[in-house]
């Protein structure tokens, strides 16, 4: 049964059929009967002995995934029990107090803005993405290396390019780290935090 595309081919919405149901088609596609069509301007990636076909979008916004994405966000508001975080996505994120610190916090005694203020930047992990909530995305800082970030530079890139920056099993990002002699942390939402040990070098 046919595969209509070749590896690294650019496909466009509609007109270009990708493959039939005999293939493992994933990515930004839609099915019309037994044929998958590309839904976006995308790049074809064929793996797994020509069985797995993926359409990788070349542009687009960040859609949170429940799988525990690490994201970089700005604190934009402080609520009674947590912080509202801008993660550059149509779905707003919330960081509840109990996910922000390891110690239990007495909300009557502590002012939340002393822990995280508006404008602070956090490196956080998505622990829940639930569209029935007012803030669909729930974040946590309770892990090593997560938390408020200070110093260095924050670079904004297209969220669809994050996979290219990370590279196959992190190969690209480790090249960056070695060549720059800097820590490079990539947020899945298209924000890259670069912190160098020797700013003058």
């Amino acid at each position, binding site marked *: 049964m046919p595969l209509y595309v070749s590896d690294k081919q*650019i496909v*466009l*919405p*509609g*007109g*270009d059929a990708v493959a039939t149901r005999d293939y493992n088609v994933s990515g*930004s596609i*839609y099915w*019309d009967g037994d044929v998958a*069509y590309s*839904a*976006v*301007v995308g*790049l074809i990636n064929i793996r797994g002995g020509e069985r797995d076909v993926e359409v990788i*979008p*070349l*542009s*687009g*916004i960040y*859609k949170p995934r429940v799988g525990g994405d690490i994201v970089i966000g700005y604190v934009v508001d402080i609520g009674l029990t947590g912080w509202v975080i801008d993660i550059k996505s*149509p*779905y*707003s994120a919330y960081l509840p107090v109990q996910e922000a610190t390891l110690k239990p916090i007495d909300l009557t005694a502590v002012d939340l803005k002393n822990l995280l203020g508006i404008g602070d930047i956090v490196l956080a992990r998505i622990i829940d993405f639930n*569209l029935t909530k007012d803030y*669909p995305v729930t974040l946590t800082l309770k892990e090593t290396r997560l938390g408020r970030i200070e110093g260095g530079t924050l670079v904004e890139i297209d969220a*669809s390019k994050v996979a290219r920056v990370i590279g196959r099993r992190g190969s690209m990002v480790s090249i960056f780290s070695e060549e720059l002699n800097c820590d490079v942390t990539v947020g899945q939402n298209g924000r890259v935090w670069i912190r160098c040990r020797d700013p003058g070098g």
Partner: protein
Amino acid sequence: MPLLVNGKRSDGRLPNEHRPVRMEVGVINNAEGSALVAYGNTVILAAVYGPREVPQKHLELPDKAILRVRYHMAPFSTSEGRKSPTPSRREIEISKVIRTALEPVIILERFPRTTIDVYIEVLQADGSTRVTGITAASLALADAGIPMRDLLVGVSIGKVSGTIVVDLNQLEDQYGEGDMPLAIMYGRGLITLMQADGEWTPAEVNQALDLAFKAAEQIYRLEKETLKSKYVEPSMSLVI
């Protein structure tokens, strides 16, 4: 003023001849996606923002995104004096018509509780602005990476001096006997917008559709080339 003399139209075109089409994508940095499209002297800019949060919470839908479209003519876009920038009755209606033409194309179910905003700004008007706007909006949506079932092509068909013609200009629009704007998902062979005024016999409607699909084929091909050219490296053949 005669609109058809010896088989030639007021601007020298043949009845089945489309005006030259120009397209460019990614013209506005602040937008998620954008496009500039010209059908002859009709020049339209489209910008797409989103999917983003719906500012008025009561408008959002739990199972899909909403689409908001604004068709607007710039004050300097017309040949007869300054057009008031306030959205007119006509502009509000065309916004709605373009929205319903775009809705079947966009896979809105992929982004529940969000809005996709499409701004269509007519920079210069010389007839066929709603169909040029549809082509521009479709390109801008694809440029924004919004999931779509196909690319849309807007084509207008008209009737002047009893002859069916493609792509009306301002004169033909004003003094012709009928016009029929169409939005075509060319890759899937579907029509998502079909309006008409004037008198049409069923045979003339068939002829109009025939003509529209022929014109749409060219425009569809140009849309694909334009979107691809953004990602293909410029040819190195000139380097010695």
